[in-house]
């Protein structure tokens, strides 16, 4: 079976996913909601990290001391995570812009009070 770190990482990923969801569900402030989303997304970072990691292998950068072509940690998941980080940053920027705008229009930042449409 897997290594201790992968158990810890797996549990951490689940925990971040759920606690992030909990934050979004109970949020009373749109900025707080954005931050909860970043926590939620951190669960994907942790999951990808432990999937790609192999104990004892170096980072996939073949400069000092690492022979080109030798085994290394998974570079594919790292590339995916780079994309993921950009996505996170931009989504949060968009949401913050919406937040500012909502506050301008309706004077509130509580997602439970902006409901003009229901039913």
């Amino acid at each position, binding site marked *: 079976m897997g290594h201790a770190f992968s158990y810890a990482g797996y549990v951490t990923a689940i925990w971040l996913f759920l606690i992030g969801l909990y934050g979004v569900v109970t949020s009373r402030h*749109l900025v707080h909601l954005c931050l909860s989303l970043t926590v939620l997304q951190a669960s*994907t970072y942790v999951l990808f990290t432990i999937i790609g990691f192999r104990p004892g292998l170096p980072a996939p950068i073949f400069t000092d001391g690492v022979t080109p072509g030798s085994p290394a940690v998974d570079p594919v998941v790292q590339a995916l995570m780079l994309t993921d980080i950009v996505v996170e940053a931009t989504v949060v920027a968009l949401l913050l812009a919406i937040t500012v705008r909502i506050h301008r229009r309706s004077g509130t930042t509580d*997602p439970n009070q902006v*409901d003009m449409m229901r039913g």
Partner: protein
Amino acid sequence: MQFAPLPVVIPLIVAAAMAAGSGFLHRRVLDLGALATSAAVLAITLHLTAVSSKGVIVYWFGGWQPVAYSHFPIGICFMIDPFGAGLASLVSLLVLAAFTFSWSYFESVKALYHTVMLVFLAAMCGLCLTGDLFNLFVWFELMTAAGVALCGYKSEESQPLQGALNFAVTNTIGAFTSLIGVGLLYSCTGSLNMAEVGATLSRGSSGHSFLIVGFLFLIAGFLVKSATVPFHFWLADAHAVAPTPVCILFSGVMVELGLYAIARIYWIVFAAASQPMMNAIRTLFLTVAVLTAILGALYCYGQRHLKRMLAFSTISHVGLMLLAFGLLDPTALAGGALYLLGHGMIKASLFIGAGILLHRFRSVDEYDLGRVNRQIIPIALMMIAGAWGLAGLPPFATYFGAEQFEHAAAEQHLTWLAGVIAFSEIMTSAAVLRFTGRALFNLGRGYSIASRGAPHIHMEVETHGKHSRVPAFMWLPMALLLLAAIFVTIPIRHSAAHYAAQFESAPVYESAVLGQNPSQFVPPQRPAVIHDESTSSTWWTRIVVVVGMFFFALLGIFPRRRNSVVSRALYRAIGYPLLRLRPLQSGRVGDYVAWMAFGIGAYGAVLLLLR
């Protein structure tokens, strides 16, 4: 196939050029450029559809053919078949219609509107054509970002912002859940290519529960996008308030793209490996489809705001299309594809109708309007034709589609599903008819029971120029889309079943993508058939639908006295459930996310218990 990347690449280049030149480009130049781009993309996607009908086209970006790597896919590929390319054609057709409609539309803040719309087009085309799981996620996220930007475009009022917020939060969480799914599958199969992942899973060492959970997480984002119960709440909020050209795309194709992705993922990645669990998956999807269709239809009938009404009708029809997919049968899938094309065009046409009313009368509210105007009568007639199409009546493509999956349901001894289909068709079309009767023909008096508690949404005027007339570039796309919804059946009606059978056979795609064998598709032993002979039962259903549609429309227009038998029965059947259900659609994003968590858990529980 040299043209394959162009549906994505051309809009992106034009978008970047427009953004760079936004300072000095004249508005009309932007309009013309956008129209030309979407027309070009339409031509290319139609060409791709035609070419791919002879065999799946696989296009490797960067030239990373897997043949050189012992058949392991190392790059990203487009995997183009008639379904994907056909859907991309629908996307570009509707984008073309949207740009035509917006010729005299709201002032653009520099070139931002055109730029974001073009990026949206590219993202949707990419989603239709890609054959890579992570690439699918990228286009999904690009679609969401562009959609949110477009949804909040007219942010002078608070409602568009609320819609954009709910859209952004729910879809982003869905995307992250899908990303977790991608991670789970990558950990087990070591690949991101759909065909390769499917092949590895079917070699099977991962166990049933892994398949279920991986599937569920992977499609979670697309369940949100396609607004199935209980992931559907955001849709009405976003669609009701987005600018009209954006609504055309949201309801016409974006939602359906979610369904397409689910079907694609299921058939290529999971179907072979999850063969023993097929019944559980079928039960889950049929249950969800029935719930979605009924719930959407009820809400739809209970609205007074035309756009919101159409949004709920989209939810209901998504239920029907999910039903077509959930039967897991090529005939039903072919019917679903036909239905999807017809529905996309009709819904787009109706949304253009809403845009015209907003342009002409500055309102789309059933009770605020109520002005007969000779000029608006052609529009009203087209709305009625649209309602006829929503009801799945001939000669619209929706009829030929619905007929097919009713047949398939009957073959699986699920005849009662025809009742659900009829209910959804009756309520959604009756709602549109009721609206047209009240608002455009000034019929009726009093309030309909169903409208009690429906939100009244103030809309801002989107157009400039003369409001006293309806320009041709507004009504023309509306009429042409309705005609297209009729004539689209002719070229594809008979070939659809063949490509549906191909769509459902992963080995074809595997050999095409991984390049091990020639990719000729041999139809299965019992080929899927398009049922030509209309049995008497389908005719009976149609008659019931027509009668029911007019009954509920008239009942909405001329409500009876409160204690009459009819109105008490109606209250029990429609009014009371609606009153109870309305609070669920609370407009609060926290509620929606709680329901999403519930949905993932519930779907998983159903699959695990039935497996």
